[in-house]
């Protein structure tokens, strides 16, 4: 599902590469943690998988498509197969939970009728039934992240990327979000999560890839934070 082949990324003016000759293969339906200290290059991987930054060297294949050679005009179509959640939720403050999720559908050309059918369903799935018409500022952090997860998942993407999704949440809420991501993983969606929340990694017991100074130092099935 995701292959990184000897990927190196050097940002301009950086003294050393953010990623240094990294090779990883992630199978369909896997749940993978990328862990490591800040600046180790974890987030660069997410950006590359989104075709936001290009590797300096190496090849990246996502869902059978070579991202490295992908032209930028193909990026929108490519992104529709990938869901993404972030530490800062990135919700639209002037839209309700329902409208935030529906917006993601409508801007890729789905009709309002489709949104009316699909959005309540996915909000129910993430546990926000009954709170569809709240605005983000009327929701707790955990609830806001659920809206973000609903928005990422509403297209039934093959891959869900999560960049420190629990970074702004308290431990209990974080666990709930992880349960939600786990549930989404069980539907067959590949989940790639970048985190430095050791508690969560230790509880989930999933594949752990540890990165330090741009290099993979550990790749362990059912790993712990260590």
């Amino acid at each position, binding site marked *: 599902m995701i292959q990184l082949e000897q990927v190196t990324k050097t940002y301009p003016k950086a003294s050393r590469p953010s990623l240094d000759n990294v090779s990883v293969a992630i199978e369909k339906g896997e749940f993978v943690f990328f862990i490591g200290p800040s600046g180790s290059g974890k987030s660069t991987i997410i950006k590359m998988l*989104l075709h936001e930054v290009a590797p300096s060297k190496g090849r990246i294949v996502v869902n059978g498509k070579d991202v490295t050679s992908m032209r930028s*005009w193909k*990026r*929108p*179509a*490519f*992104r*529709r197969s*990938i869901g*993404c959640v972030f530490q800062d939720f*990135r919700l*639209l*403050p002037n839209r309700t939970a329902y409208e935030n999720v529906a*917006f*993601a559908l*409508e*801007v*890729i*050309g789905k*009709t*309002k009728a489709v949104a009316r059918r699909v959005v309540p369903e996915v909000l129910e799935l993430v546990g926000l039934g009954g709170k569809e018409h709240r605005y983000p500022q009327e929701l707790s952090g955990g609830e806001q992240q659920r809206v973000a997860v609903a*928005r990422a998942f509403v*297209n039934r993407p093959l891959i869900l990327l999560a960049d420190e999704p629990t970074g702004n949440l308290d431990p209990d809420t974080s666990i709930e979000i992880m349960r939600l991501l786990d549930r989404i993983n069980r539907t067959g969606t590949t989940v790639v999560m970048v985190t430095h929340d050791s508690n969560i990694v230790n509880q989930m017991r999933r594949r752990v890839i540890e990165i330090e100074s741009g290099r993979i130092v550990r790749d362990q099935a059912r790993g712990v934070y260590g």
Partner: protein
Amino acid sequence: MRLKYVLSEVMVGLWRNVTMTIAMIITMAVSLTMLGASGLIYVKVAEMKELYFENIEVSIFLETEVTEEQKTAIKASLDADPLIDSVTYVNKEEAYEVFEEMFRDSPDLLSAIDPEVLPESYRLKLVNPQEYEAIGEQYAEIEGVDQVVDRSGVLDKIFNLFSAGQKIALVAAVAMAVAALLLVANTIQVAAYSKRREVAVMKLVGASNWFIQAPFVLEAVVAGLIGSLLGLGALAGLKKFLFDGALSALQGLFAPVSWGEVLLAFPLMAAVGGVISAITAWVTLRFYLRV
């Protein structure tokens, strides 16, 4: 739904920053008025040139002491010249009548002139009036010819004046267009900034580039088209109040400007206004949104 979304975004965008929108429209309107006026002058000058030069006549004035043999020779070569359509001989008396007509307000001058001192001449109608210069060169040096005269010098001066006016209008149009362009770029940047969250989400979930850009580009195009409509109004005003009003005394001199021609300037103005706005908005977005 998508069209409705785009259109409502355009309206919201134009209202959100209404002072800027108005500034953009006014600058655009002035620029396009200048452009339209310049275009009209250009067309008119071309038309008038054709009209005037079509009727240009060349006169060949003879020396006062010209001999009969020389006259016959000149007449013969004029008649044989394929460039010349017809030749009219003007004798001293006829020349004096023309002179009388021209200077009838100056009887002192008239009484001082004796018909005998006025030169005889041949008035020529050319097959192709554009070739008056060739005739001048050909006959000026012949024995018995004093000088070859045409009215092209005066006409050139008049048309140079028109052309200068047209160029000034064009320069003003370009200067205003630069201002309009910068205003469009600025407006689009402000609009993109105020919608940066929406744009970020749209990019993230894979909205197509045209869908992200369309509201901004259309916003600029709508402003450009409103500007061109105002420009059309201004041109119509110029025709009605300046050309048909204040300058109506000069009508005989100018080729008249019809309403049809004013209307014909509109497609030019609308196209330039719309296309320039669209390109500016699009380029601005490429730098600003990097979509």
